[in-house]
């Protein structure tokens, strides 16, 4: 077991912490599908590079893909208005479908077979390599340190946007920095574990934390612990039942969320009924 599952388990232990933290922001901001939109923009970048006959693993392809991710970050930062009748989630959804459709069109025009592109974009946790884990860990530590030093501003931005705007900080610039680092994390994680797992690691632990605790630190701790339990349990089940690894992990997270929901019935005081309802 160990010799096959060591690197996947290590990946599930070392990497998701940062995603759980970012997931707290994403859930709070109510922009649930931003990761998928970002990943789709990055893959649109790859399709574009392929159209221009660049090799899939050339550095230029990587930079183009990164460029598209930053473009998406800018788009979300500058269109992200917190009031009005168009929710930001609508912009995100539109960015996703347009990017996905553009990829389909680009690939239909390219003469390359697209199986390699698909395989490159959608990783499989079972096949993660040592190099991928440490490369990604390096990036995550970098982004993590960045977020640690600037945590006060990012927290204000996500959790008290009105106060952030009133404090005179340059909201759009800081939003851009948030989305840019977020995009970097998501696109590199997608390449080693696939879209389903990225979404799961971002959203499920954060929601479990919100359901069962009040303070941010406690929520984060609950999320991180659950992400470890979910990842390792899912990999074990995948090994002993011989199931696709990513899908097994996602289903375990589904069960964890139900459990957290049940726990929330007992531990969390009900919020007072809102008068407007």
């Amino acid at each position: 077991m160990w010799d096959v599952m060591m690197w996947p388990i290590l990946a599930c232990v070392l990497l998701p912490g940062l995603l759980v933290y970012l997931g707290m922001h994403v859930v709070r901001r109510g922009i649930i599908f931003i990761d998928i939109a970002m990943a789709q923009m990055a893959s649109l970048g790859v399709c574009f590079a392929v159209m221009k006959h660049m090799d899939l693993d050339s550095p230029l392809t990587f930079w183009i893909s990164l460029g598209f991710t930053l473009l998406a970050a800018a788009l979300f930062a500058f269109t992200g208005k917190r009031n009005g009748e168009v929710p930001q989630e609508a912009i995100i959804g539109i960015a996703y479908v347009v990017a996905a459709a553009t990829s389909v069109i680009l690939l239909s025009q390219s003469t390359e077979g697209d199986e390699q592109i698909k395989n490159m974009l959608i990783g499989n946790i079972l096949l993660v390599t040592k190099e991928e884990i440490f490369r990604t860990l390096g990036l995550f530590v970098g982004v993590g340190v960045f977020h640690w030093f600037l945590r006060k501003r990012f927290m204000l931005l996500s959790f008290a946007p009105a106060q952030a705007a009133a404090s005179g900080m340059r909201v759009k610039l800081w939003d851009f920095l948030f989305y840019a680092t977020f995009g970097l994390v998501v696109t590199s994680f997608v390449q080693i574990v696939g879209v389903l797992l990225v979404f799961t690691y971002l959203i499920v632990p954060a929601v479990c934390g919100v359901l069962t605790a009040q303070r941010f630190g406690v929520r984060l701790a609950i999320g991180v612990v659950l992400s470890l339990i979910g990842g390792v349990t899912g990999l074990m089940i995948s090994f002993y039942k011989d199931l696709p690894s990513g899908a097994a992990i996602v289903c375990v997270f589904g069960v964890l969320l139900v459990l957290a929901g049940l726990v929330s019935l007992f531990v969390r005081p009900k919020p007072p009924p809102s008068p407007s309802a």
Partner: protein
Amino acid sequence: MKHSIPMLLTVLAAFTGTARAKLSVVTTLADYAALAREIGGDHVDITSMAKPTEDPHFVDARPSFVVKLRSADILIEGGAELEVGWLPPLLQTARNPKLEAGAVGRVQAAEGIRLLDVPATLSRAAGDVHASGNPHFMVDPIIAKAVAAHIARAFAAADPANAASYATNEKKFEATIDAKLQDWGRALLPFRGQHLAAYHDDWLYFARRFGFDVDVFLEPKPGVPPSPSHLAEVIGKIKAEKIKAIIVEPYHNRKIAEKVASSTGAHVVEAAQYPDGLPNTATYVELIDVLVTRLTTALKN
């Protein structure tokens, strides 16, 4: 009671003895597994990674694949870039020196086979990602014979004790194919020279062997849904060439084929490239039998 333990040990030794003697063979696709079964008989233990109804270009890796690859003596793959999207990372994870490129245990079926549709230039701009040619060669029974011989040689090299058995089985397979080729050829003879349509460009070796011309493809590129203008062009060609059959496989979009069929009067022929991809096709010969029957039925109409 006293002699029960030594006896138990003898029994155990006998079991582990036979278990060790069996060659552990992993194949990427079900067609190689079917041939390996013909050649290896009881001396080999065979696992096919892709299911016969799974698209060979995209196969979902499962933990058991890595486990099997790790302890395998022999890996049989196409070797012509068909499995390029999913096999290399599996091998990298399994790290089995017996299966390294060039090792006795690594059987690349395409080796020594003259592939069709090899792109003239290798520049990426020129196109085809299958740089070594069209990799769907196993549905040509004569090529299958060559691959069977290749497999028999590899088994003999890895397990010399049973070399005679592998050689006998290979001769038997060859004789069966030679006899069957007469039947298949006779059944398809009336339709020689006809044009056929297919969802994906993977019937050219079959077509060459039996005198067909498969030259209309429903998908412009693997995985890319046909555009309306492409479909219109396909329908026009099918009408102009009076094509009577559209070949689809389990992992293709049947709806598109049915749409084209309903507006042209051609028949959708459900086919498979892999044994067990259709009912009652457990062996290679049974598969070709069923393909020939289905095709003649569709073309007679």
